[in-house]
């Protein structure tokens, strides 16, 4: 039986599934329910300065995009940090942590970019007995207009400075949460590292407008006829987040910094993928907001089953296993040749592969009067579009050509050796170097 226990920068939890800082972790009631349901840890919804708390809009806070049967694919929110009193939150954190000592309790914080503000709040958080803090440098709406959240996360120097203050005034691990609303995710990650951060977590939400109401001409969610960009999350953002995670995992200035992966994690499989890209644990929000806390049971059982099947006894066994295989385009093997192959036994003759290839690709699929679809190897560039549009799993596959075979499209023999763009004769840089 696989051991799912997690030790993330010294913070222990029975499994690597944490709830991200968000509405599900805004108060004691929810967090107790989360722990009862089996979540390994929570990042308490972001605390602000003492004093009158922020206010939220009193209209809709969320917008969504849907797949079939109104399956929620992407969610956007314009909610701010906690709108409850700081001391109420601190008391609740202390109580819950005392009752669940084996679970990870992280406190998300966002206060103005002034040393005094951090110096004031950090001892209060330290006193709760929480296991660490997460610096919210990612919130893309509302708080950023006040010089906090993403406004800090978009300036690496600020990240480094604030991180340094936190390490100075707080004794436990400091996790820096990064905004994806920047050009190069490696820069803020490197700044966090330089400031002494114990880890980074990413991604926070992406600037977004989920839809426009074509009657009122207002973006959704609409507050009295007007809308603001919100933060996008959910299954739709996972590819973006994983790319950013991989950039940090393999970046020269960032490799090695512990990563807490966030972004569209909905199933155990999503979590496993993040971990193979180097994440020590994962944080979940939208999936819980969509289906409730119970989904963690599937995540735990699924990851455990898969680890047993693959012979992994701990998370560390496969953490980062995919990182060496993430490379730059220029290093991809140009001598690798594949062709699409259609399994006629599985084919249901819908013709989508044909329409896609004929209209938008390489005219490499033939269609007979009897609706038999076949790949024309002499035209197929193995682009994979037919595989992607086929409604039947595994009906169309990409088959590698063995070295020595002749590619009927190019007339060239498939070479056994690896060769990439950096040495390709068509590369002007190669010529220039000679």
């Amino acid at each position, binding site marked *: 039986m696989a051991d799912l226990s997690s030790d993330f920068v010294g913070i222990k939890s029975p499994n690597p599934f944490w709830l991200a800082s968000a509405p599900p972790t805004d108060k004691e009631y929810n967090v107790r329910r989360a722990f009862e349901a089996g979540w390994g840890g929570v990042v308490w919804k972001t605390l602000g300065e003492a004093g009158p708390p922020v206010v939220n809009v009193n209209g809709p806070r969320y917008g969504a995009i849907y797949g079939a*049967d109104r399956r929620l694919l992407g969610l956007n929110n314009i909610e701010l940090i906690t709108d409850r009193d700081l001391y109420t939150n601190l008391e609740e954190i202390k109580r819950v942590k005392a009752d669940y000592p084996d679970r990870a309790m992280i406190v998300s914080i966002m206060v103005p970019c002034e040393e005094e503000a951090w110096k004031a709040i950090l001892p209060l958080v330290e006193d709760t007995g929480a296991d660490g803090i997460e610096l919210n440098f990612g919130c893309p709406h509302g708080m950023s207009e006040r010089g906090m959240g993403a406004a800090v996360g978009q300036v690496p120097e600020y990240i480094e400075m604030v991180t340094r203050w936190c390490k100075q005034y707080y004794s436990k691990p400091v996790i820096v949460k990064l905004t994806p609303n920047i050009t190069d995710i490696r820069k803020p990650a490197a700044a966090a590292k330089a400031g002494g951060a114990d880890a980074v977590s990413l991604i926070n939400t992406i600037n977004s407008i989920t839809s426009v109401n074509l009657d009122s001409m207002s973006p959704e969610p609409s507050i009295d006829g007007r809308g603001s960009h919100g933060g996008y999350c959910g299954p739709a953002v996972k590819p973006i987040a994983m790319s950013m995670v991989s950039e940090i995992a393999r970046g020269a200035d960032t490799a090695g910094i512990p990563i807490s992966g966030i972004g569209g994690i909905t199933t155990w499989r999503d979590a496993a993928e993040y971990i193979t890209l180097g994440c020590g644990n994962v944080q979940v929000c939208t999936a819980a907001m969509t289906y409730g806390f119970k989904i963690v049971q599937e995540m735990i059982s699924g990851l455990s089953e898969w680890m047993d099947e693959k012979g992994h006894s701990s998370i560390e066994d496969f953490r980062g296993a995919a990182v060496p295989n993430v490379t730059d385009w220029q290093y991809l093997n140009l001598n690798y040749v594949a062709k699409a192959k259609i399994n006629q036994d599985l084919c249901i*003759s819908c013709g989508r592969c044909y329409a896609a290839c004929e209209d938008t690709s390489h005219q490499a699929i033939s269609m007979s009067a009897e609706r038999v679809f076949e790949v024309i190897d002499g035209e197929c560039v193995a682009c994979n579009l037919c595989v992607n549009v086929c409604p039947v799993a595994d009906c169309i596959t990409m088959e590698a050509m063995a070295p020595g075979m002749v590619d009927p499209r190019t007339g060239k023999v498939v070479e056994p050796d690896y060769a990439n763009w950096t040495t390709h004769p068509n590369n002007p840089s190669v010529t220039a170097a000679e």
Partner: protein
Amino acid sequence: MTQSPFTPGVAAGRLGSADYADNFSDLHPALDAHEALVAADRCYFCHDAPCITACPTDIDIPLFIRQIATGTPDAAAKTILTQNIMGGMCARVCPTETLCEEACVREMAEGKPVLIGQLQRYATDHLQAQNVHPFSRAEPTGKTVAVVGAGPAGLSCAHRLAMLGHAVTVYDARAKPGGLNEYGIAAYKTPEGFAQAEVDWLLGIGGISIEYENMLGRDVTLVGLSAEFDAVFLGMGLGGVNGLAVDGADKDGVLDAVDFIADLRQAGDVATLPVGRDVVVIGGGMTAVDAAVQAKLLGALNVTLAYRRGRDRMNASVFEQDLAASKGVRIMTHVVPTAIHGNGAVHEIEFEYVNNDMSGTGQTVRLAADQVLRAIGQTLDGEGLPALEHGKIAVTGAGRTTVDGVWAGGDCAAGGDDLTVTAVAEGRDAAMDIHESLTGAAG
């Protein structure tokens, strides 16, 4: 309730009013908006889709389903109605399980086709509920066309001709339009007066007048119509029925299934309709099933559908056979009636068991019967018609008969399945050919 299913003989009011209402409600309740979106999402938008090929009216099914999925059911309805002006009725009565839904690739993949028929109904109902007619007439051509029969073939032809700018006069033998849609289809397939509502909506195109209770051969003649109009389309269906050539076929309680169904469709209150305790329907087609199922729904205790061949040879689709079985109709095969017994009224019907090649076995069986419904085929009535082929009007191309200026389509014309949708297609195509012939314009 003084009568019950056990009441011997032929009696009305065998059931309670709630049972009647339940029995004659919609066979397939309409999809609501969310159900339609879910059903529409299953469509793969196939290339050169097999469902289109399978549809006698060539409706662009993937396109209309995508239009539903993207929230424009009225655009979907226009896609349907452009090809098939009776798309609303066809959505209800088409044997989709042997047409578009049989061809659906998801039928092949999972045994569960996209619900094409129900989606078509969703779209057409959505548009027709607004009582708007989506098509407009072309400039008047000054040409006149007579259409005989206000059923699916005739109305489809009339609508297309009117849309193209011709003035159309429709002659129908009955007091109401609709043909078999109004008189010949099971009530639970088209409840709530849909047939009349659809005709009213269809006539919204303008340029069509209908002369009711004008029967070809009785009130008007083909020669007269040909002289008066620039073209004539014959779409009067099959007015005659095959008789039952056995001893006792003239006894009380022996009826034509088409009359039984017509009476039921025209009845204001089905509780007033008499039905036997023991009903035997002879035949194996859609009419036989419609009659048998409705006899059961009217409260008959025992209903037997007796067919001379095996179930695989029945014209009624497997879906229809299963529907009959699910309503409690017993399907008896390989039997031919040999005699009807009774003293004045039918009391029993006698069959002989026959082999697949119809040779007799010498074994007989008697069934209790106080009603026998004949559903063994319909025939073309009338004289002075164009040349016939196998008892129907011979046609070439888009319904051209042997008489110049006279076209034919629907059940009265040779060739094609005797389906509503086929009649609509034939009426439409004949209209296009008439138009071309009258104006010299293609399309």
